[in-house]
């Protein structure tokens, strides 16, 4: 039985689109876990969720217009929405999260309407299904999409390393950071733009409804057991890589939807971390 399993694995590993999927998945999970830590600590998780629905709406427009490489439409729309959401979230007379909920749900509804009416695609429900839940999009990436993913991920990682200390300062205490002369407006904007980029990339992996999981789970899992910001960051990365690869391979081998499989693996491993955290803290779960 073991040999059969290895043979099947070997078969899949040799398929170029599987190799691409693994590379892209690793890069996406790396980036989303990095920014997830900041997002969760700044209590901005709802921005990730709202943006992912906006991205779905943008994807719908891209499908209706029959774009081949949809990312070139998705990226600008999502980035602009991120900037607007962040700015208006602070100034709005309504509380920030009501506004985001509006945009979020509106984009989702509008998106589905557009796909329904205007898509010339052969199989609309497949498109919707795969965009929302990421069933096969990671396995059907075009060469351009793969290259764009790689370049953007590398840029995100470099930006994160360069601005790591600033991101920490702005996340922990924005008022103090402003007081010592840091341009917190700029850094918040930077974080918003990077989140937007990551969301567009991550839509390929887990679909827009499940992106929040990819961003949030690594951070909250790491925070169960880690004691410094650096530890939390590294732990989140490891958690994200492991759950993504396990989830992706599991989905490939057992023919389950990629997005949901990854999230289920994340839930299981989060529970393990949670229990470990409680034991460590001296309180048995």
């Amino acid at each position: 039985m073991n040999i059969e399993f290895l043979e099947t694995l070997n078969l899949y590993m040799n398929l170029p689109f599987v190799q691409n999927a693994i590379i892209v998945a690793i890069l996406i999970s790396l980036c989303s876990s990095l920014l997830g830590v900041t997002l969760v600590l700044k209590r901005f998780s709802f921005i990730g969720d709202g943006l992912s629905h906006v991205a779905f709406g943008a994807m719908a427009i891209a499908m209706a217009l029959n774009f081949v490489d949809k990312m070139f439409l998705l990226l600008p729309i999502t980035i602009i929405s991120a900037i607007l959401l962040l700015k208006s979230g602070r100034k709005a007379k309504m509380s920030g999260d009501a506004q985001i909920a509006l945009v979020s749900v509106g984009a989702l509804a509008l998106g589905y309407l557009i796909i329904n009416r205007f898509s010339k695609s052969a199989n609309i429900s497949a498109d919707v299904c795969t965009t929302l839940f990421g069933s096969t999009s990671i396995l059907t990436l075009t060469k351009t999409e793969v290259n764009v993913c790689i370049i953007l991920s590398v840029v995100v990682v470099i930006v994160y390393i360069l601005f790591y200390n600033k991101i920490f300062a702005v996340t922990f205490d924005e008022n103090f950071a402003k007081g010592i002369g840091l341009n917190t407006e700029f850094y918040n904007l930077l974080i918003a733009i990077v989140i937007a980029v990551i969301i567009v990339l991550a839509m390929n992996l887990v679909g827009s409804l499940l992106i929040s999981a990819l961003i949030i789970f690594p951070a909250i899992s790491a925070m169960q057991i880690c004691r410094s910001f650096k530890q939390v960051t590294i732990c989140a990365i490891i958690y994200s890589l492991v759950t993504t690869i396990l989830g992706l391979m599991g989905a490939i081998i057992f023919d389950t939807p990629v997005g949901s499989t990854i999230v289920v693996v994340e839930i299981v491993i989060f529970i393990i971390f949670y229990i470990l955290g409680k034991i460590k803290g001296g309180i048995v779960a």
Partner: protein
Amino acid sequence: MKKIYLMFLSLIMVIVMSFNACAAANATRATKKEEKIDYDLVQLKGQMLYSQVVNIMEDPDTYVGKRVRLIGNMGIIDGADNKKYFIVNVGDVTSCCTTGLEFVIKGGSDKVEDYPEVGKKVRVNGVLESYKEGTQTYLHLVDTDVYVYKDKKK
């Protein structure tokens, strides 16, 4: 804390090793038939098969001229001027993601009687070719051997 690091490192190593463990063996399996199959997809099922077929369609240059074998379900599409297109459909379990690859049976017939019944499980083995119809370019298999599976008795 260190223990957890080590656990994860070893988990990652196991996973990475499983990538490299196997030699770059081709997925080709020779059958008893004379023609050499370049891309044998009969091992693939569900979303893997669907994805592979979509990838072929997205990147025709790599696959045109090569012999491809796959298993799917028979389908017919009615085109303009009563023209019929014969398709082998592939999809995942939920049929959420499905697509079809057009094929022309050996001998080049375009009559419905020469093709299997719609809905039957078929295994097709043909050479990928691109052709133009109007302004659009399409892909189909030519010189195709077709094997029809018998229905499983309940």
